[in-house]
């Protein structure tokens, strides 16, 4: 009985306020799409890191002939120095480093020649122009700082390089895009809150005769406010569902159907990720509506 009555009130309120309700739906739709896009971008970054960080190594470049780095004052790294470094890796970095191998100048030259069979930009290089290195596979790519700290400045080590640095510009771009989406989402969410507030206020004013009677005959606060709460929540949830649907379509057609086919060596976010994000959007919508209602209702439907 109560439930049915409240529902009736909600729908009559929605009908009376159609334009405002549509506005709320659209604004929450757009704002939550941005929120979802930001979340998906982060998911994408996570996927790329998972994929690519498995491929990258840390290169400990050993001193070549004539290096000006202080640790290379003794000239080209000697076998003893290399062994000392390996010793350190084996003892101090057992947790961080999962695999070590030594790439000699010759091996480096081989790999280089393989990649550039006709010489690099017209230069003629020999194995002596190459630099020997220790290649480390980290058990966790994020541990680079620790490894670098331990190995940098050792005798015979010229520089410790993280191949991850290659990806940094891409991740920086994606992170900037995330920030942009999140920023726009923030602005739109603010607009959504204001709009929901206004809608509830309008609804409360247009129904103030009803609420007055309700107050006088002793309806409880919750009972008076529930229809308004539900009205805002319903509109916001509708917006969040649209946002979820929009993101799903975007991922389905732009990522799965198009990007994945044209650039197929990258792992992309999929519809599954959208399904993971969508419930969060709905929760956010409800929280949004609850927040706006809380501030409005106490002012407009007080007992």
């Amino acid at each position, binding site marked *: 009985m109560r439930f049915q009555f409240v529902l009736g009130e909600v729908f009559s309120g929605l009908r009376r306020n159609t334009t405002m309700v549509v506005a709320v739906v659209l604004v929450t739709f757009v704002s939550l799409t941005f929120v979802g896009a930001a979340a998906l971008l982060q998911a994408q970054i996570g996927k790329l890191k998972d994929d690519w960080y498995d491929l990258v190594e840390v290169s400990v470049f050993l001193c070549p002939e004539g290096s000006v780095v202080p640790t290379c004052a003794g000239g080209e790294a000697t076998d003893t120095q290399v062994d000392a470094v390996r010793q350190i890796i084996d003892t101090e970095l057992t947790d961080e480093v999962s695999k070590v191998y030594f790439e000699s100048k010759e091996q480096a030259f081989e790999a280089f020649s393989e990649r550039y069979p006709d010489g690099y930009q017209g230069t003629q290089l020999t194995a002596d122009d190459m630099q020997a290195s220790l290649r480390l596979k980290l058990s966790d790519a994020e541990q680079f700082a620790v490894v670098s700290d331990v190995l940098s400045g050792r005798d015979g080590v010229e520089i410790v390089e993280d191949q991850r640095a290659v990806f940094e510009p891409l991740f920086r771009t994606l992170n900037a895009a995330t920030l942009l989406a999140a920023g726009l989402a923030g602005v739109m969410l603010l607009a959504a809150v204001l709009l929901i507030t206004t809608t509830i206020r309008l609804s409360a004013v247009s129904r103030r*005769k009803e609420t007055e009677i309700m*107050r*006088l*005959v002793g*309806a*409880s606060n919750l009972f008076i406010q529930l229809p308004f709460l539900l009205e805002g929540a319903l509109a916001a949830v509708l917006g969040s569902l649209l946002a979820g649907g929009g993101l799903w379509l975007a991922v389905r057609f732009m990522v799965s159907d198009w990007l994945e086919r044209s650039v197929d060596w990258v792992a992309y976010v999929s519809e599954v990720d959208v399904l993971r994000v969508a419930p969060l959007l709905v929760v956010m919508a409800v929280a949004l509506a609850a927040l706006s209602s809380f501030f409005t209702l106490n002012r407009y439907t007080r007992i």
Partner: protein
Amino acid sequence: MIRFENVSKVYARGARPALDQVSVDVERGEFVFLVGASGSGKSTFLSLVLREQRPTRGRVYVAGRDVANLSGWRVPTLRRQLGVVFQDFRLLQNKTVHENVAFALQVIGKPRHVIRDTVPEVLDMVGLAGKGKRMPTELSGGEQQRAAIARAIVNRPQILLADEPTGNLDPTTSLGIMRLLDRINRTGTTVVMATHDDEIVNEMRRRVVELSDGVVVRDEARGGYGEREAILPDVGASPVLDSPGSGTRAPVQTVRGV
């Protein structure tokens, strides 16, 4: 049933109090007229009973509750024991008479079968049998007030507050409304009615509490409305009539030709 103990109500700091040290005791089952000029404090009195306002000083007891110190979430429970009727009926125009009365029960969560049984009964009692399907606009003023009364009493309140219920009605219709209120009173409901209608007060011969400038100036068990000023008081050639009810004559002014 209703007890005011030295109740004062000041709306704005420094302003003249709307009620000033008012002490009134209304017994269960009584019928009380609250009379006095506009601004004498009648409406403040009723809104204190309803706990729409809190007294600035003093205590208000309604149905055994200390209303002034009642916490917000208990107010609905208090109001379920009160029925209110207004001069302007305050029916919801988009609902039928039946729906208007049912509304009062729906919003306090009464089950459907109770509503189905009670509403026609009450409509019958107030003399609107068979008019439940009409819209308020299709009713006469008297019928609208009957609908409003039906809504006020449908939950069987212990107290019925009426704020000038006949203010918008002609004398004959008013009489019908008064008979109805009297009948409701005879079923044991305490009735407090604020009114300007001296004919009704004089005819009913019930308890009269007269307020003037927020002070109880008269409390008679079987009173009449009290002295009224003549509509055209004998004040000589006066261009300005004093406000009614103040009892003082306007100073005589002579208008000189320029």
